[in-house]
Every structure is written in structure tokens, then in C-alpha cells.
């Protein structure tokens, strides 16, 4: 996190030197986005806080943790394919889940399917590409996401 802050600071300085006006527009744009997304982030944090309080940690670790095995992946892949969560919320959530004891491989499958497969957005996709192409794309991406997820998992297990 410190590194990211340093990168951001360097980017702002470089941008200021190059063009002061553009920099302000950029910072303004970013701040507006932040304010817009903040209510959603806070309310998700609230819901997650309540759910994590109600669910015992052992249960999460048992079904989604290191030793969870296959069921963890299946759950992550289904949740990831169906859910429609913007990354601004998905990543903080993933970070919390990792700290609670969910294993990195399970998180990897969840994140990759979440980003690559969109079951809820399928109707929109069909309008642009037609039924056949949309179904093929999502199916191929589903398996692609699983492969990426499993490979990431391998790197964490080994």
C-alpha cells in the first residue's frame, strides 16, 4: 500500500509538471468518482461486517479456506459468474475475506469468474453480439477464468 501511495504521489508530481490544468481536471474527476462510489462501499462494508459477525470464522475457513477443497472452488465459481459487483467493491471484499481465512486460490477463482463471466449482464451482451456469440464467449471465458484461477492457486499452494 505504501508503494501505491508513492506511485500516486510521483504521478501527481509528474502530471503537475507536464500540465497543471489537466492535473486538476484529473484529480477532480477522481474525487467525483470517489464521492459517487463511497455510499455503495460503506453500505457493503456494513453488510459484510454484519455477515462476518454472524458467520463463525471456523465455518468460513472450513468451506472456503486452505483445506476446503473442491466445494470452495465450485462455490467461488458460481458466485463469481452470477454476481455483478464492481471491482471497487469486489477487491476490498476479497481483501477482507482473505484476512478472515478464505484461501487465495478460492479468491482467485471468484475474482476471475467475477470479472470475465457475466450471467446477469447476458441480456445486455446479447443485444450487441447476438445469442450465439454471447453464449460462446461466456462459456469460453468461464473455463478460461477457472484455468487462471487454478493456476494462481497452484502458485500459492506451492
Amino acid at each position, binding site marked *: 500500500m505504501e508503494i501505491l501511495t508513492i506511485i500516486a504521489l510521483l504521478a501527481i508530481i509528474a502530471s503537475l509538471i507536464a500540465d497543471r490544468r489537466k492535473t486538476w481536471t484529473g484529480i477532480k474527476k477522481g474525487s467525483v*468518482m470517489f464521492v459517487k462510489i463511497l*455510499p455503495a462501499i460503506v453500505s457493503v*462494508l456494513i453488510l*459484510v461486517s454484519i455477515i462476518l459477525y454472524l458467520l463463525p470464522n471456523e465455518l468460513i475457513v472450513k468451506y472456503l479456506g486452505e483445506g476446503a477443497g473442491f466445494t470452495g472452488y465450485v462455490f467461488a465459481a458460481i458466485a463469481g459468474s452470477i454476481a455483478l459487483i464492481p471491482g471497487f467493491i469486489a477487491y476490498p471484499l*476479497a481483501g477482507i475475506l482473505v484476512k478472515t481465512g478464505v484461501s487465495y486460490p478460492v479468491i482467485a477463482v471468484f475474482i476471475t469468474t467475477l470479472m470475465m463471466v457475466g450471467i446477469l449482464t447476458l441480456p445486455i451482451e446479447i443485444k450487441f453480439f447476438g445469442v450465439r456469440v454471447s453464449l460462446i464467449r461466456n462459456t469460453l471465458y468461464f473455463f478460461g477464468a477457472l484455468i*487462471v484461477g487454478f493456476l494462481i492457486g497452484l502458485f500459492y499452494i506451492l
Partner: protein
Amino acid sequence: MREILKKNCLNFLIIVAFTVFVAVSFSIDYYPGKSIFKEQFYSFFKEMILFLPIMFILIGLGDVWINREKVEKHIGKDSGLKGIILVIFLSMAQAGPLYGAFPVTYLLWKKGASIRNIFIYIGAFCTIKIPMITFEIGFLGWKFSILRTLLSLPIIILIAIIMEKYLKNRKFEVHEV
């Protein structure tokens, strides 16, 4: 401000209800309420509130500095490797959900982008958008992010090639909605 209120009706309801719940919990010393606030919510919130503004400023700066039109000119049918690289950079610079990428693919298709490049655009949009990567690094770490990016790239290019092979002799078009 009005727009934000309108769009976040449910979110504000949750926030207000939670605030009341926490306030009551503290005043009557209700342990679960205090614990949810202190051990769960506050510890998550504290970490994010410092971190998120920095990321959004980075995203805003990226948005201002990257010129989309220039890139769009060079990703046609015979664009080869250069086209692939450009289309990846183009989609990396975008933000927003996947369904926001579809209208862009329509524009690309109309401008003559190849089938392969259209699907590479979608793939890169899904997996390696810079705004997402900054979040990913922040919350899941460099190792995770680098691994996922490096593993995803060949797979989305491969899928795009498969899509192109399959659709080449079939009718393929992107519709305007």
C-alpha cells in the same frame, strides 16, 4: 449531490439504519452491536478511507492523460501484433463495468477493427483495466495481481483467436443498441 442521493437510496437507508443501530448499541451497552462496529466495520473502514481517495486520483489522472481516439485508428484487420498491443492498452485505460465495454466494441467494429481485436478488447477490459489493477494490488497484493495479469493475457488472446477462427466464415456483427 441530488443525483448521488437518488442513485444511492438503498445505500443511504442501510447507512442510516446501521448508524442508529450502533448508536443504540453503545448507549445500552449491547455487546454484539459494539463488536460489529469496533471489530468488523471500523477496522475495514479505517483501512479503506485512507487508501481509496489515492486510488481514485490515480484513476482520474489516467483518464485525463490517455488519448483514446489516437489508438482507435490503428487496430484494423491487418494490424497484427501492433494492433493487439494497442487494443490491450486501449482497454486497460478504461474504467467501469463490462457492459460499458460493449458500446465501445460497436464503435471499434464500425471503425473496422478485426474480430480478434474486438474480443481482445473485451478480454483485456475484463481482466487488466488499470483502475482495477490498482485496487487489486492494494487489497490482494502484488503477487496476486502480477500472476493474474500474466496468466490472463495469453488466455484472452487465445480465446479471441478461437472466436475469430469460428466467426470468420459466419455472419458476425456488433449491433448498435
